[in-house]
C-alpha cells in the first residue's frame, strides 16, 4: 500500500523495516490466504488421484481414500473418512472466518 510505504519511510524505516512492517500489517490477510490454500489442498481429490496415483502410504490422501473405499463398496469406511475430513475442513474454515472478523 502506497500510503503505508510513505508513512513508514518518512518515519525513518529502512528497507528491511519497511518489508517487515508491511508483512506485519498484512498479517491477517497472509494468514487467511495460507489457511484458504491449506483448505483447498486438504479437500483436493481429482489432481491427487491423477498426478499422485493413489498409492498406499505414498500418495494416498483422505479424499482419494474416500473415493477408493466408496468404489470398493465399503461405504462405512468412506463415510468415516469423510467425517474426519469434514471436521478438519470445518476447523480450518472456522479459524479463517475468525481471522477475517478480527481484521
Amino acid at each position, binding site marked *: 500500500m502506497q500510503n503505508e510505504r*510513505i*508513512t513508514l*519511510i*518518512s518515519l*525513518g524505516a529502512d*528497507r528491511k*523495516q519497511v518489508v517487515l512492517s508491511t508483512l506485519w*500489517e498484512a498479517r491477517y490477510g497472509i494468514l487467511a490466504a495460507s489457511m484458504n490454500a491449506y483448505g483447498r489442498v486438504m479437500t483436493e481429490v481429482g489432481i491427487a488421484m491423477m498426478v499422485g496415483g493413489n498409492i498406499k502410504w505414498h500418495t494416498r490422501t483422505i479424499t482419494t481414500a474416500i473415493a477408493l473405499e466408496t468404489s470398493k463398496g465399503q461405504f462405512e469406511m468412506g463415510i468415516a473418512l469423510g467425517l474426519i475430513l469434514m471436521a478438519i475442513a470445518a476447523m480450518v474454515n472456522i479459524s479463517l472466518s475468525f481471522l477475517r472478523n478480527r481484521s
Partner: protein
Amino acid sequence: MTDEHDTFNPHWSGNRAGGDQDTDIYQLFNIKKYHKRQLAVDIESLTISPASITGLIGPNGSGKSSLLRLLAFVDSPSEGSILFKGRKVAPFDASVRFHVSLLPQEPYLLKRSVFDNIAYGLVLRGINRSRHAEAVAGALRW
C-alpha cells in the same frame, strides 16, 4: 492529467530570512519525475533555506505531492539530483531518514494500538523500550 503546460515549475527560491551562513537544506537541479511516462514534476532549480517556510501552490495533478515525496526521499527523481544540506542522498540514507518527515494527506495508521503507533518512530530509531512510555505520554499531552 498533467501536460507540459501545467506541470508545476517554480522558478523562485525560498526566502532567505534564516541567513546564508547555514547550508541550504535542499538544492534541486533539473529535477524531472515521470509517472508512467507522464511528466509529473519538472523543476529547473529550487533552493530551500533553513528557517524559511516554502509554500507550494498549484492545481490538482500539477505535481505538488510528487515533489513532496521527492523531498522526503520516499521517491527518487527520474532525472536530476536533490542535495540535502549540500550532500547527495542515497535511498534510505540513515543521515536523512531521521531528519525529514512527510505527513501524507491521507495519514496511515498501523494496525496496532495507539501507543504503538506513536512509539513506532522511537522503535525505528532504536530507542530503549523503557523510555517509550514517557515519550509517548509527552506526545499525547500536547
